[in-house]
């Protein structure tokens, strides 16, 4: 299932067939694709950031990251039963942060220094654990939850769901804030130092475990926001909600260059556009997933480190 299939952002095409009308139609299609692409891509980027930051700093693939989205969506569902959307969103972020940090402490921290394969298998195990727990707690039928109905507006004759614009705006704000945080703050710089050289970072007095915890907390809070965006698009939660977006966002992170923050943004946007364009072309629409993963393979063949990934430097 693709996010773009869920988008109701159709062009209100007129009946006329003149050249001018055709041109206007194409223009509207373009606006639709650009806005959808940015919004879907923004969500992928938001999730991809979690993968990429954890990879950059803890040097591991946190396969359970996608399932944090699901945890966040269920948290919103539960809190919405008794309270309002704002409280639900805040609770969801807190729950995701706690869950992310707990997973790191319980499952990954004991494996620090173990073989990457052992860590990867553990992460996959955690992913299934979360999905199964959700199924035990909430059952296997999807739950319905409308967080907030923003409605739709007309822009240049194109009907656009307002949540798409909200998603876009929040994504931009989050990306800018995160970039500033990493570049300008003491903890942010410590994150860069740890991602480059754990040993040297320790020699500077940086507590690597704390930095890893902060990284998981940030990644998980972004996943919570992604969970919210999903619910705005399609108001149902199931225990596999995060699986496919997780894999897609992971693909985005790898395409952009795993470990690179701007890379995650770029990869996310690229996948978002590919998905939205493919969804518009009837013949290839059913193969959207295959196309996205093919792009991953092709890019990795041409540029094994992704677009903005660093080449491995040899230690002197």
């Amino acid at each position, binding site marked *: 299932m693709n996010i773009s299939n869920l988008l109701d952002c159709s062009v209100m095409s007129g009946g006329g067939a003149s050249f001018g009308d055709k041109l206007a139609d194409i223009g509207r299609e373009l606006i639709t694709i650009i806005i959808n692409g940015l919004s879907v891509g923004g969500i992928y980027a938001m999730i991809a950031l979690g993968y990429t930051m954890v990879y950059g700093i803890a040097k591991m693939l946190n396969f359970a990251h996608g399932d944090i989205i699901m945890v966040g969506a269920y948290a919103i569902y539960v809190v919405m039963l008794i309270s309002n959307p704002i409280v639900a969103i805040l609770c969801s972020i807190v729950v995701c942060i706690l869950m992310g940090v707990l997973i790191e402490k319980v499952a990954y921290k004991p494996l620090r220094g173990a073989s990457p394969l052992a860590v990867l298998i553990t992460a996959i195990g955690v992913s299934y654990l979360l999905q199964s727990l959700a199924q035990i707690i909430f059952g296997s039928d999807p739950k319905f939850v409308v967080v907030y109905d923003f409605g739709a507006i007309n822009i240049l004759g194109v009907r656009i769901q307002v949540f798409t614009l909200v998603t876009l705006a929040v994504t931009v704000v989050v990306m800018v804030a995160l970039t500033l945080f990493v570049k300008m703050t003491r903890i942010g710089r410590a994150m*860069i130092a740890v991602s480059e050289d754990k040993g*040297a970072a*320790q020699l500077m007095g*940086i507590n690597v475990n704390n930095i890893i915890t902060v990284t998981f907390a940030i990644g998980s809070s972004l996943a919570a926001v992604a969970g919210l965006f999903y619910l705005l698009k399609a108001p149902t939660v199931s225990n596999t909600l995060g699986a496919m977006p997780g894999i897609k966002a992971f693909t985005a992170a790898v395409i952009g260059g795993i470990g690179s923050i701007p890379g995650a943004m770029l990869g996310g946007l690229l996948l978002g556009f590919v998905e939205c364009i493919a969804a518009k072309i009837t013949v290839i629409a059913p193969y959207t997933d295959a196309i996205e993963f093919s792009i991953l393979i092709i890019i990795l063949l041409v540029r094994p480190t992704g677009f903005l990934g660093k080449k491995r430097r040899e230690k002197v």
Partner: protein
Amino acid sequence: MALLEVKNLEVYYGVICALKGISFEVNRGEIVTLIGANGAGKTTTMQSVVGLIPKRGGQVLYNGKEITHTPCHKIVRLGMTQVPEGRRIFQELTVYENLLMGAYSVKDSSGFKNDIEAVYTRFPRLAERRNQIAGTLSGGEQQMLAMGRALMSHPDLLMLDEPSMGLSPLLVDQVFEIIKDINRDGTTILLVEQNAGKSLAISDRAYVLENGRIVLSGTGKELSESEMVRKAYLGG
């Protein structure tokens, strides 16, 4: 009381014994050197003392306080800073940001401006290149940056692991001059070197490490005159 006291330090890599129980001490104000061939265990000693590599046995005392099991990131705060082998500056950060990282452990940031000016005065090249990405510096400049970064934490004991490695003879001389200067300004130095001639010349005392054991110790002068050191490390 010695500033740093290492007793019977044992370190293993898996089943391989890299340090077979070595003991040495560094007194306040001294320059002490560990010399030894490639693979003797010098880096293992430096990194296990600060907790970067786990110890199997032995004891490390700093200022009389047991720090054998103190995690590495806390050791800087005690006043012991290491310039690691291969410099390991943060390649993606600028020169200035690297120095900022060096001051990470300093709680009171009010002295930061003075500290960084002091580093720029000691290493004028770093001042010229303060906004350059550190990965683009030359080897000599990277060594200066690594030393400047370490000085930002106000060490009482500065540990340097092969600071002359890979540098041109002119730069090697410069590095040894700077080490002497830093020591004269009141910082105790523990130096590890393969360049035995130059390091013994500036050392108060030295130890010779061979295959994970200390086989000889004495003042810098004694060791540079010793038959064994001349044969093995000074080329006759």
